[in-house]
């Protein structure tokens, strides 16, 4: 075809200059010999180039410098006059944006239901350019200084700032190092490194709390008491856990009372001294005991009526 645009560099930082050249080959028959090469950026008015000259082989070349590219994406056209209009010879796409900042707030949780380690991060300010994020990692030892086998890159789904490392890429009960790499056409950056054992960052769910209906005959009918049982969240049963119970009377502004250091499973638990209201709300949460772990959220509230 007749015209050809070259830009360098094709991607610039927003506001930086762009240098473009449009060449028309001599054998472009339809055109008269010395066509005036013109330019158009997006929908802006048509403008001449900064300089137009002959190349040794007879090619006409026009050069233009766009001092500040303020579009994150724009088309640059090379045209020539034609009757009382213009003819487009070529079109080039200009992209402008920023190199990626370091992803921040990298955190991970081990999901026992899917057996995967899900890490999430904050991507940093908008770069206006297609930017890819990859979660990288390697196996390590206690202090995370040692660099063992690299784990396969975890590529998040489109526009998601989290990634799920499948079980087969995890070595449980050993430390590993993970970080996020961001890359676009203007550069790349990495997040700070995270050193963790997947089993120390388990996403724990609360235990299953249940009311126990104690037959009237069984217990001396002491008022203000209720009985409950609980068992740990099934997928976490293999983990030794310690739990907390909190309860409050259903009264406006009532406070929670906390009972700590409870076992993770209990067939029968008696709670007495509940005289402030007919109905009490109870909740429980657990945490891995004697090894690192996070508290589970509180269980949904259980409304119970103490004995009258």
């Amino acid at each position, binding site marked *: 075809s007749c015209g050809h645009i070259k830009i360098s560099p094709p991607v610039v930082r927003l506001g930086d200059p762009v240098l473009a050249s449009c060449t028309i080959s001599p054998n472009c028959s339809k055109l008269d010999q010395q066509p005036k090469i013109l330019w158009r950026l997006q929908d802006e008015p048509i403008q001449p180039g900064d300089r137009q000259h002959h190349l040794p082989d007879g090619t006409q070349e026009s050069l233009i410098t766009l001092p500040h590219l303020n579009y994150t994406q724009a088309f640059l056209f090379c045209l020539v006059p034609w009757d009382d209009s213009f003819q487009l010879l070529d079109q080039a796409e200009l992209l402008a944006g920023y190199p990626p900042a370091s992803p921040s707030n990298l955190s991970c949780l081990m999901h026992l239901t899917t*057996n995967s380690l899900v890490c999430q991060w904050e991507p940093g300010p908008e770069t206006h350019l297609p930017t890819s994020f990859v979660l990288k990692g390697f196996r390590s*030892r206690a202090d995370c200084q040692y660099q063992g086998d690299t784990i396969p890159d975890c590529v998040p789904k489109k526009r998601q700032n989290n990634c799920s490392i499948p*079980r*087969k890429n*995890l*070595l*449980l*009960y*050993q430390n590993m190092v993970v970080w996020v790499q961001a890359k676009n056409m203007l550069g790349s950056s990495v997040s700070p490194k995270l050193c963790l054992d997947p*089993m120390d960052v388990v996403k724990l769910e609360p235990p299953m709390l249940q009311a126990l209906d104690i037959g009237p005959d069984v217990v001396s009918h002491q008022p203000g008491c209720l009985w409950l049982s609980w068992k740990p969240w099934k997928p976490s*049963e*293999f*983990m*030794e856990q310690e739990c907390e119970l909190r309860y409050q009377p259903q009264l406006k502004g009532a406070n929670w009372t906390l009972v700590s250091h409870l076992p993770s499973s209990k067939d029968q638990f008696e709670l007495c001294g509940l005289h402030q209201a007919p109905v009490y709300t109870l909740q429980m949460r657990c945490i891995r005991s*004697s*090894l690192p772990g996070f508290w589970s959220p509180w269980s949904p509230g259980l409304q119970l009526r103490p004995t009258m």
Partner: protein
Amino acid sequence: PSLPLPRSFLLKSLEQVRKIQASGSVLLEQLCATYKLCHPEELVLLGHSLGIPKAPLSGCSSQALQQTQCLSQLHSGLCLYQGLLQALAGISPALAPTLDLLQLDVANFATTIWQQMENLGVAPPVQPTQSAMPAFTSAFQRRAGGVLAISYLQSFLETARLALHHLA
């Protein structure tokens, strides 16, 4: 006398034993429900003919607990069972996910033991090589071999659990 074992190693190991035993029971329940293979004791003869081994744990027995030998046998046994579980691949699409998880958990527990042996300076220079694995020639052999291998693994872990408690 051997160096005392760190508390975190013992707690993590006990947790891994419970985790593996939990998956093992799920798999045995699934094998029973799906294929009516509910009695490992009815498969002993088949086990002999298929060459399904029982990993020794003499060093971990409560009467003659010997820490280094126990750790070494624990590691070798876990490697053996990991190989056996790998040989069961293709047991059935429904059981494959649970079997994969069990095999990974066993392999990871073997690494935990090996790391500790290295930390104690009692690890042999090279990890034990994988012994020959039985070749299963029919779906039945793979399922029956699975029931037997997992039930042997469960009792192996029970001995290990008692030993770890003693060592704690």
